[in-house]
C-alpha cells in the first residue's frame, strides 16, 4: 500500500505555513502521506482561478526521482512505453510505464535535465520498481521527493504573473519545455507543464526557498487575481481536460490484488504513448499480443445529459451493463457533464450512445436517474492558449 494508515502522522510540505494561512475553510486531505488542502475557500472559485486568472497548487508531494548515468536513456526506454530518445534536453515528456503483463503501473512526466540526466515525476511511490529496473544498467537512482518543492501555476494569467515575478521572457517557453532562472541565489526551474489542460507552468525550487517563492509569486500575481486551489478544484479541471489519474481511473498494476483489474495503456486510451517499434520495454511482449488479439476494454469520455455527475455509474446499452464510470464531474467552463468510463470491447466508438445509471441522494432519499450519454472525441476543454507560443499576455 502506498497510502499510510490513518495512524501515521501526515507530513507538511515546504509551503505549509503559507498554504495553512490561506486554507480558510481548513479542509485537508492526505496526499501520499502529506497533508494538503482539499479546498482553500470555495471549490468553484478555486476552479475558476485556473480557467480565468491564475491558480496555484502545491504539488510538492509528487514523487521525484533523479536518473543519471551513461545508461540513463536506455534505462528509461526500457522502463517507459514511449520513446524517451525523442525527448530533447530541457524538454519534458508524459509517459506511462507497465509491468511485464503490459498493465499500467503509473503515469508521470520525464524531465530531461542533461545528456544523461533525467527526473521522473510520478504520482505513485516508485523507488522500489525503479531500482529493480536498474539491474543491468549503469545508472544511479535518487529519490528527490523531499529535496524539491514545487508549485503548479496554471491559468490564462499564469505567464504574466510569473513574468511579473521576474521570470523574463517566459512567454517564449514552448509547451513541455523547461528553463532555469536565478532565484534568490539559487536555481529555479520552470516547465510549461500541468494537470489542468490550460496555459500553465510548474515551478521547482529547493525547499529552503519555497516560502519565498510563494510570497513573491502571490505578490506578483495579486493584480492578476492569483488564488491557491486545492485537490477538489484540480479534479474538476483534469476531468474537463481528459486527464486520467492513477488509483482513480486505473488500479496501479503492481498493487492489484484481484486478477484482471489492471488496465493496459491501450485500454486507457493511451496507445499514442506506446512505441512498439522500440526493441524492448517492460510490457512490450504482452502489448504486442494484446494488439494482435484485441483489448478487453476501451477508455471513453462520455458527455452525459443533465447536470448530475455520473459518479460510479454503470453504463448501460439497452438492458446490458457494458461498463462503469471511474471519474465524473460537472465541468463549468465547458458547461458539460463529463464522465470517464471503462467500456467492454467492442463498445465505446466515437458517437455511440448509451445510458448512465446515476444514483444520487437528497435527504436520505435515493433517486435513480437514467441519463443518456454519448462517447465524445477527445476532451471537451482544450483551449488554444494551452499551446500558443509566445503565450498570450493578459
Amino acid at each position: 500500500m502506498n497510502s499510510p494508515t490513518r495512524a501515521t502522522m501526515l507530513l507538511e510540505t515546504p509551503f505549509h505555513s503559507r498554504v495553512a494561512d490561506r486554507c480558510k475553510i481548513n479542509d485537508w486531505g492526505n496526499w501520499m502521506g502529506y497533508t494538503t488542502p482539499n479546498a482553500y475557500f470555495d471549490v468553484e472559485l478555486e476552479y475558476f482561478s485556473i480557467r480565468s486568472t491564475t491558480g496555484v497548487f502545491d504539488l510538492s508531494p509528487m514523487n521525484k526521482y533523479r536518473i543519471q548515468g551513461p545508461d540513463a536513456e536506455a534505462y528509461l526506454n526500457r522502463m517507459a512505453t514511449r520513446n524517451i530518445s525523442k525527448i530533447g534536453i530541457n524538454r519534458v515528456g508524459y509517459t506511462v510505464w507497465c509491468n511485464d503483463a503490459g498493465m499500467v503501473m503509473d503515469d508521470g512526466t520525464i524531465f530531461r535535465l542533461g545528456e544523461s540526466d533525467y527526473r521522473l515525476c510520478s504520482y505513485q511511490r516508485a523507488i522500489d520498481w525503479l531500482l529493480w529496473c536498474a539491474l543491468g544498467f549503469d545508472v544511479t537512482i535518487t529519490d528527490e521527493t523531499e529535496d524539491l518543492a514545487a508549485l503548479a501555476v496554471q491559468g490564462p494569467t499564469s505567464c504574466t504573473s510569473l513574468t511579473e515575478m521576474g521570470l523574463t521572457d517566459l512567454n517564449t517557453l514552448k509547451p513541455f519545455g523547461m528553463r532555469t532562472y536565478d532565484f534568490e541565489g539559487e536555481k529555479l526551474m520552470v516547465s510549461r507543464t500541468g494537470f489542468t489542460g490550460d496555459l500553465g507552468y510548474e515551478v521547482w525550487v529547493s525547499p529552503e526557498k519555497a516560502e519565498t517563492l510563494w510570497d513573491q509569486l502571490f505578490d506578483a500575481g495579486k493584480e492578476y487575481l492569483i488564488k491557491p486551489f486545492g485537490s477538489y478544484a484540480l479534479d474538476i479541471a483534469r476531468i474537463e481536460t481528459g486527464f486520467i489519474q492513477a488509483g482513480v481511473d486505473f488500479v496501479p498494476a503492481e498493487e492489484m490484488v484481484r486478477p484482471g483489474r489492471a488496465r493496459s495503456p491501450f485500454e486507457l486510451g493511451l496507445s499514442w504513448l506506446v512505441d512498439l517499434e522500440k526493441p524492448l520495454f517492460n510490457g512490450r511482449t504482452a502489448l504486442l499480443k494484446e494488439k494482435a488479439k484485441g483489448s478487453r476494454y476501451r477508455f471513453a469520455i462520455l458527455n452525459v445529459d443533465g447536470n448530475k455527475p455520473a459518479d460510479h455509474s454503470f453504463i448501460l446499452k439497452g438492458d446490458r451493463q457494458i461498463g462503469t464510470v471511474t471519474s465524473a464531474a460537472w465541468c463549468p467552463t465547458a458547461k458539460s457533464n463529463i464522465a470517464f468510463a471503462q467500456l467492454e470491447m467492442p463498445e465505446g466508438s466515437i458517437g455511440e450512445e448509451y445510458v448512465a445509471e446515476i444514483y444520487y441522494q437528497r435527504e436520505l432519499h435515493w433517486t435513480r436517474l437514467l441519463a443518456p450519454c454519448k462517447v465524445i472525441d477527445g476532451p471537451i476543454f482544450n483551449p488554444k492558449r494551452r499551446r500558443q507560443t509566445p503565450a498570450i499576455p493578459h
Partner: protein
Amino acid sequence: MTDFDAIIIGAGHNGLVCASYLAKAGKKVLVLESRAVPGGCAATHEFAPGFQVSSCAQWLYQLSPKVVSDLKLPQHGLAYAAEGLATIALDETGDHLRLQGDSASGGGISSEDQKAYAVFRKKMRKYAKLMKTAYDTRPPKLVEHDFRDKMTFAKLGLGMKLLGKDDMSDLMRLILINIFDVMKETFGSSKLQAAIALDAVIGTPMGPRSPNTVFTYLHRFLGEVLGFEGATQVKGGMGTLGAALSNAATDLGAVVRCNTTVASIDKTHDRVTGVTLSSGECITAKLVVSSADPKTTFKSLLGYHHMEAGLVRRIEQIRFKSGTVKVHLALSGLPTFTGLDQSDLGQRLVIAPSLNALESAFNPLKYDESSERPVMDISMPTIHDPSLAPNGQHVLSAIVQYAPLNPKGGWEALRAPFMTAVIAELARYAPDIASLITAEELLTPADLAATFGMTGGNWHHGELTMDQVLMTRPATGISQYQTGIAGLYLCGAGSHPGGGLMGLAGRNSAQEIIRQGELA
C-alpha cells in the same frame, strides 16, 4: 537459414539429455561446453597423480531409467561398479547402523524402530510415487487452464486420493514441516534419525529443523521409485556417465563441442537468434536452450538489460545458497574404521551422529561460517573400482557440510582449518586416516560454482524449497521451460523438477520444445 535447429548451452547431463531427445526427433543440434570434457557434474578428474575421483556427484541414485533406456546409455559405455549399496551410519565406538532397503540393523536399534523404518519407507515410497507423476512432465500452471496442465492436476489429485485419507492428510501435514520433527515423532534411535535427516539436508543450505526438508528428502527418495535401492557407483567415476551421455547425443546426430565458452546469447527485438562464443564466433539457431542455471542464463549470458524488468526481479529473487563442499583424499592404504569390517568400506558411509549434531553443524552457515564438526557422506570408490588409484592405494571422496560460499575472511583463510576439521572428524571413526593421506583436495562452494558454473555452488541450480518448485521453478511465468523470450528455452536443473543426476529436466524440456512445434 540458421546454422542449427537448436543450440544447447552446457554439456551437463541435462543439456546432453535434452540434446539427445531433440536429435532423436531429427533436429540439428549443437551442444556447447566450456569445460574440456562433457558431463558437467557427471565428471571424473585426476586430483593427484594416478588418483581419479568423481568430481562433483559421487553416487547415482535417481537417474531416470527412462532416460537410460531411451538413450541406450549402457551401449554408450555406462556401467556400474556397484549397485544397491547399503548406507552405514558410522558410530565412534564401532556400533554402526546399517540401512539396506527396508531393513535397519546394528547401532543398538530397537525392534520398534526396525518396524517403524519399514513402515516409514513404505509411506515415503507412496509419496515419492505421487511426486514422480509431477516430475515426469512439465509442471502445470495454475491460471492458464491448459488442457495438458489440467490432466497433470487431475493425475496428481487422483494420486492424492489414492493415498487414502490418512496418508493424504499426513502428506499435507508433513510436506511443509521439517525432517527433525518427523524423525522425532517416528523413531527413537538418534543414529537412525540423523542418518535419514542427512539425506534431507545434503546439497541444501538447510539444517534438519529448516522447513522444506521433508520435501528435499522426498526429492532424494524419488530414486527408490525409479528403481534404485540404495546408492549406485558408476564404473570409472561419474565421468563415465557424462561420456556415455555425450556419446549417445553424438550417436543420435548432435554435435558436442567442448572447450567452447558461450560469451552471450544473441537477441534481436523479438527473439533469441543464437550465441556468440568467447572467441567472437557467432552461431545461429532457431532455438537456444540453456542448461546453465537461470541466473547465469539471464544475467550473464542474455543480460538483464535485454529483458523486461519483472522477469529480472523474479530471477534476482531466486535463492542459490549452498553449504556443500567436496573433499577428496588420496590414501596410501585402506583406513581402519573402528568396528567396521573391511568388506563394508565400499558401502555408503555417513557421519551424522544425531539430529542435534546435524543442526549444530548447520548453525554457523547462517552466519557465513563453517561447521566445527562437519557431517558427511563418504564414498571409497576404489573398493569397487581399483582402476581409480594406483595399485593398493585408495581414494576417499566425501560430500561435506557445512561451509559457506563466501566465508568471513575468505576461503584462503578457511581452506586449511576446514580441511583439518574434516580430517579430525574422519579420525574419530578411522583413527589411522591422517597417516594414510598422501594428497588432498577441497572443493569449496566457490570452487564448485566456478568449475561447474553453478551460481552459489548450489547443485540444484536454485534451492529446492516449496516456493521454488513446480510452477514457481525457476520462477513464475517461466516454469514450463519457455522463458517468455521467443527462441530461448531452459533445460537445466534450475527448471522443474530440479537437480541431482536425474535427467528429467533435460528430457521434459526437449519434449516441451517438440510439443510446442518450435522446430517443426
